[in-house]
Structures are given as structure tokens and as C-alpha cells.
């Protein structure tokens, strides 16, 4: 297994997540697609850490930070989704335009 295999895998995973991000109407589905994109970036980090700097493992440390930020993002995002559902009885993102003027 070379570095290219992992990079191609993570590129395909990233564009799948981006497809979901662009086409989903449900806000929870959008958040799931964002998680897929985070994971694609993480695979890149760990693969670079294994193949480019195998003795310093900088990429592994950075992927821990990415996972932490992703957890924080999921918590805040789902809280906002719940609040919008409570106030507007729906979480379809193309109906939510109350910040537009």
C-alpha cells in the first residue's frame, strides 16, 4: 500500500461528503456529510504522518485536534438544529432563510 492509495481513498470520500453537503435538504443530513469530510481530512493527516514523517507523528497529533473540533461542531450544530426545529417546525435548509434580508 502506497501513500497514493490512501490519498485517492480520502479524495473520493471527501467529494462524496461534499455531494451530500450540496444536495441534502435535511440539516441533520448536512451535518452528517460534514462529518464525512472531516474524516477524509483525518485519513490524509494520518497517512502523511505514516509515510512522510514516520518518526515524529505530527499528523496523528493534528488529527486528534481535528476530532476534538469535529465533536464540538457536532454538539453546537445539533443544538442549533433543535432550536430551529422548535421555533420553525422544520429543518429543511432551503426553507430556513430568516437571516436573509
Amino acid at each position, binding site marked *: 500500500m502506497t501513500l497514493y492509495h490512501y490519498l485517492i481513498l480520502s479524495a473520493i*470520500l471527501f467529494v462524496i461528503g461534499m455531494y451530500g453537503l450540496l444536495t441534502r435538504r435535511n440539516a441533520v443530513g448536512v451535518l452528517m*456529510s460534514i462529518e464525512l469530510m472531516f474524516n477524509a481530512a483525518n485519513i490524509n493527516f494520518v497517512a502523511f504522518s505514516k509515510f512522510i514523517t514516520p518518526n515524529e507523528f505530527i499528523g496523528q497529533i493534528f488529527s486528534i485536534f481535528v476530532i476534538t473540533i469535529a465533536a464540538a461542531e457536532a454538539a453546537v450544530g*445539533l443544538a442549533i438544529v433543535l432550536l430551529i426545529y422548535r421555533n420553525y417546525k422544520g429543518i429543511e435548509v432551503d426553507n430556513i432563510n430568516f437571516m436573509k434580508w
Partner: protein
Amino acid sequence: MFDLAFYILAVLILGSALMVVTLRNIFHCALFLVLCMFSIAGIYILLEAEFIAAVQVLIYVGAVTILMIFAVMLTHQLTGKTIRQVNDQPIAALFIISSLLVLTLLALSKTTWEVASSSGVSPSATELGRALMTVYVLPFEVVSVVLLVALVGAIVISRGD
């Protein structure tokens, strides 16, 4: 052996990721997200990052997707829904992602990476923890404050009046 494991995991990851972005029932999407995260943990084990694999299982499989399932259950009536899940931009989205994928693969094929030879020892959790507590202690503390602020913010936002 490793090649076979890689290809099986890659097929699992990409197949379940496709299910996550295309299925109509959002609850099934959350379950396929669990499968996808689990297979990515397998990829981390192939990359000799055992600690990251454990963190992946604990945080993504254990916490984030459960949070997603809770959000799905709190925001949807699970029975008898015929809501359209996809907006009317799939053609444009397909165009954007295919051009992005082609550009990424072109850039990949034109780049030569300086692949270093490994010393044979994979970094253990002990070394990771030591690095986090010495060299990377400032980003570690900053990210812990960020996490605390996000959790307090989530509670304040979702508590309501």
C-alpha cells in the same frame, strides 16, 4: 494480506458513505454513518495509528453518531413521512464534485512525495501523550477551552426559555 484488508475497508467506507448521502430515510443514514466510521478506524489500524483508531471508535461511533440519532429522533416523526430529502441541485452538485475530484487527482499525480523510511517502530500512546504534554501543550490547552465553550454554548442554545 494488508492489500486485501485495505480494499475491503475502502469498499466498505465508500459504499456506506454513498448510502449516507443518498438514502431517503435519515435514520438509516445515521446507521450507515456508524459503519463508515468503524471502517475508517480499521484504516487507521492499517496505518499503525492505534490510538487514533480507538479515539475514532470512542468519539465518532460512540458519541457523534449517537448525537445524530438523538437529533433525528427529536426532530422527525419516524412514521409516515414522505418529505423530499434532496434539493433540486443534484446535477450542479455532480458537476462540482466531479471537477473537484479530477483536479485533486491531477494534482496528486503531478506531485512527488518524499516518502521517508520508517524506523519500524510505530508511535505508541505513551509517546503521543508525552508530545501532547510537552511540545504541543499550548494547542492542547486551547482546544480544551474551545471544547468547553462549545459544550456550554450547546447547552445554553438548546435549553430554550
